[in-house]
């Protein structure tokens, strides 16, 4: 219930955050909205000695139109992504999905950057950003770099971020077509996705079918080859490694992926 002791540091700027991270090294973790990290710390599954609070970095919370893409500050809360008029117009998939994360209280605190950096395979936004072919911007003490989303999620809870690197921005290209869908299968509204599917145009991604968000490559290839949604969806589970847990067996997850991809493709087509 109570985290083990740590030292709290509040960063006043992104630069200061990186400097603090460099100073404390492995002993430190960034704290954004805190709704991935604090729950782990309260169960003592994580016990960093130093917490660097990014909550004061208000200049990293924004949603702006950059012409060919939308730029979203990493500390933009799910609530603000959900209610962004700009995203509702330009990237409705992302606005909609952000509204499915957790519950209203969680969405008032959790951030898009925090969710992506934490990279829980059952979380929604990583797969959505993968479907949107987003680019992530990270900064370290050496400067900033861009990371294509396809390179970002490496394995279970492991991303391309180097130690001390801070996600600052997510760049989402404005989608070419209007067809999108987000299918999140849960038993209860509050649950993490048992399986989820995101579709944006010809890109189809899967939530919780492996240690990272996955492209449903076989589905995409079938679609590109002219297959109908139903026929393409039959390939949904190919190349996946879904877990079996108390909510679902692997076999059931594979079945759900096929059903949800079919529904997602049909819905996306109705919007296109």
């Amino acid at each position: 219930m109570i985290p083990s002791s740590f030292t709290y540091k509040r960063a006043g700027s992104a630069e200061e955050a990186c400097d603090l991270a460099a100073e404390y090294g492995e002993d430190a973790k960034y704290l954004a909205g805190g709704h991935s990290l604090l729950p782990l710390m309260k169960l003592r599954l994580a016990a960093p000695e130093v917490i660097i609070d990014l909550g004061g970095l208000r200049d990293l919370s924004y949603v702006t139109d950059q012409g060919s893409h939308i730029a979203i500050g990493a500390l933009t809360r799910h609530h603000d992504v959900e209610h962004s008029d700009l995203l509702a117009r330009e990237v409705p998939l992302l606005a909609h999905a952000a509204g499915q994360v957790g519950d209203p209280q969680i969405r008032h605190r959790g951030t898009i950057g925090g969710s992506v950096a934490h990279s829980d395979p059952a979380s929604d936004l990583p797969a959505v950003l993968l479907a949107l072919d987003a680019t992530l911007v990270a900064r370290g003490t050496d400067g900033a770099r861009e990371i294509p989303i396809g390179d970002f999620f490496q394995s279970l809870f492991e991303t391309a971020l180097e130690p001390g690197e801070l996600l600052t921005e997510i760049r989402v290209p404005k989608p070419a077509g209007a067809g999108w869908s987000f299918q999140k299968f849960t038993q209860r509204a509050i649950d993490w996705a048992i399986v989820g599917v995101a579709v944006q145009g010809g890109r189809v991604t899967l939530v919780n079918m492996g240690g990272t968000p996955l492209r449903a490559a076989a589905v995409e290839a079938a679609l590109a080859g002219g297959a109908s949604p139903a026929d393409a969806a039959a390939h949904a589970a190919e190349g996946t490694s879904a877990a079996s847990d108390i909510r679902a067996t692997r076999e059931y997850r594979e079945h759900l992926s096929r059903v949800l991809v079919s529904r997602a493709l049909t819905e996306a087509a109705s919007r296109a």
Partner: protein
Amino acid sequence: MSIMGTRVIRTEDPRLLTSGGVYVDDLRTPELNGAAYLSFVRSPVAHARITGIDASEALSEPGVIAVLTVRDMDDLAPPPPDSGEGPSEAPAPIGGVWMEPLLAVDTVRYVGEPVAVVITDNRYQGEDAADLVSVDYDPLPAVVGPAAAVADETLLFPAAGTNIAATHPVPTDDAPFEACEVVVEQDIVNQRVACLPMEGRATAASFSDGKLTVWHSSQNAQLCRFIVAGVLGMDPAQIRVVVPDVGGGFGAKVGIDRDAIVVAWAARKTGRALRWAETRSENLVGMTQGRAQLQHVKIGGNRDGRILAYRIDVIQDSGAYGRIGLLLPSLTCLMAPGVYDIPEVQTGFRLAFTNATPISAYRGAGRPEATAAVERAVDLFAAEIGMDPAEVRRRNFVGPDKFPFQTKTGALYDSGRYEEALDKVLAAAGYDQLRGEQRRRRASGDPKQLGIGVSAYVEITAADAGAGETAKIEVKDDGTAVVYTGSSAHGQGHHTAWAMLVQDELGIPMDQVTVIHGDTDLIPVGVGTYGSRSLQLGGSAVHKAALEVKDEARHQAAAILEAAEADVVLDTATGLWQVRGDPDTALSWAQVAGNTSGGSLIADVSFTADAPTFPFGAHVSVVEVDTETGQVKMLRHITVDDAGTVLNPVLTEGQRHGGIAQGAAQALFEEVLYDADGNPLTSTLADYAAISAPDLPSFELASSETPTDLNPLGAKGIGEAGTIGSTPAIQNAVIDAVSHLGIRHIDMPATPQRVWTAITEARKVSNQ
């Protein structure tokens, strides 16, 4: 006009809504100033011998005052050795070789079993220090689930020679079934669930000048005092138990359990006032859980719909210790035939220990299990003979002219109108239209199928009617009244209801009536709130006390007015005493009370009833099943729950709503799961699928009041009825939604995985 039966909103609410309830962990009472904090070290393994406890690292942590184990309990009767012989006043009703210690002796038998306590200056330090107490465990094989238990391969209590604590053998006479045209058998799982009150267990204790005060989140302070006195070897007069606001109980907070007794003991042992409030993770392994039966049912009858024989054989999972003895499966067997007049009823059970959290009462306590079994059996029979399940029920009800009705299992149903309840609920649901919609969806091959589930139930409330309940009313010389009740509300609204009774009987306005419960210094004798007993026994006690106060007041008023008692009347509309027909003689309650030597009118009574009462009802559940995914959505839930005369419909509806939700939770969502080593898999709310607002529709409640003669209020108990009726209706609805695929049974909870598996299996069979 009488206030009885009218809608009255609660007197409890303003305080709860503005400054909040005061639960044990909120207490700021001076006796707890400077209290230290107690944390438990709990077993992380399901079954093991303890080979060593090393507290040295913990003891060197900041703020640690003490680390205590069973070895420190030298002020109690000797702890039970592993063979289980020990003091007879232990908190478990099953003693002897199954004895449950306060802190583990040499063996742990469930994950979460308390092994040691750490006492620290504050709560945060407690969690740090508890992590550092090093306990060495030598693991033993875990007995997981009641089927494994009865196999007796690994024994929890070797000295007992078996895991089966008690057997009531089920009759094996098959002749009544052989005489039937149709017989159906089914294994049914009534799964283990967590009680999950929103407030977990919490206790505080202070020992000074030989007097022990215990604040405990409980359903009955007086039973707590009795238990603590016995275990700690104290005179009850030296113990005060205070029950403040309680954040839900549902049966799991009856009396006081071993963890809380340890807090009381530790306060005496250390001389420090102590506080303890468990975390939710502790609660989900440490608080007793509910249900957990394996059932085998056999039902036989004829194609005309008449049921002739019913057998139920129960294996009751007791968990690691026997907290409630044989009560749950005994009640299941008692209520086995439900609302049906079945000529031959055979019941039996075995009670078996497993390496899991101990089982005890949970909303319905044995009766939901009985109802779920017979309602499944009736639907299975209906499916076998191809008859509508509502119609089958109608052909087997105990008729309205048969009451009081003695069942084959020994229950005496006081009153009931079972067919009328069914008719009412079917009409309210629009049953025929629903069946029409179902037919349309089946014909069109709609992937979203409609399921309609019916249940009819009867249940036993105030099963311990003879234990009764107490009430004391004091009318003071300022005209206000105080009611001291042995009942112990934890959300039921007794303060409102008892004030209504006083206003109705004595004409003292509700806002002049204070109700007090839960303090053994003020109410030394009381029985408590569980088993849906409080209105019929506690309310009747208040009513009885009111009548006695009224008699005493009449006597006093007559003296003041120099009139004959027979000529003195109370106008309950105004609360004034007067000589009949002479308003100029009017006296207030204040004046009458002031005329007594003590300055107040007091009546102190207990009320017992001759027998339990039997509320009944019928539910219809409408669900939608997505046959492509197995997802179940509750569309509607319609009920008749008849618990006799309704005192306050607001309170009754609230009990029905809450009951329905917990019943739905068992049918669709909740299950306590263990892995093969006895490790709990659902020990946080992230994993345990507690039912939430979007999972439920609004409920449709129809009214029905069939009074009982067994108490002056005509009341039966409503608290558990909603749960008992809802679970089987919803389970039956899910199966009904896919019955056209040949599916006859799906165990609870009907999760998407389980429903999908049933559909997939059925499709394989039909493709063969």
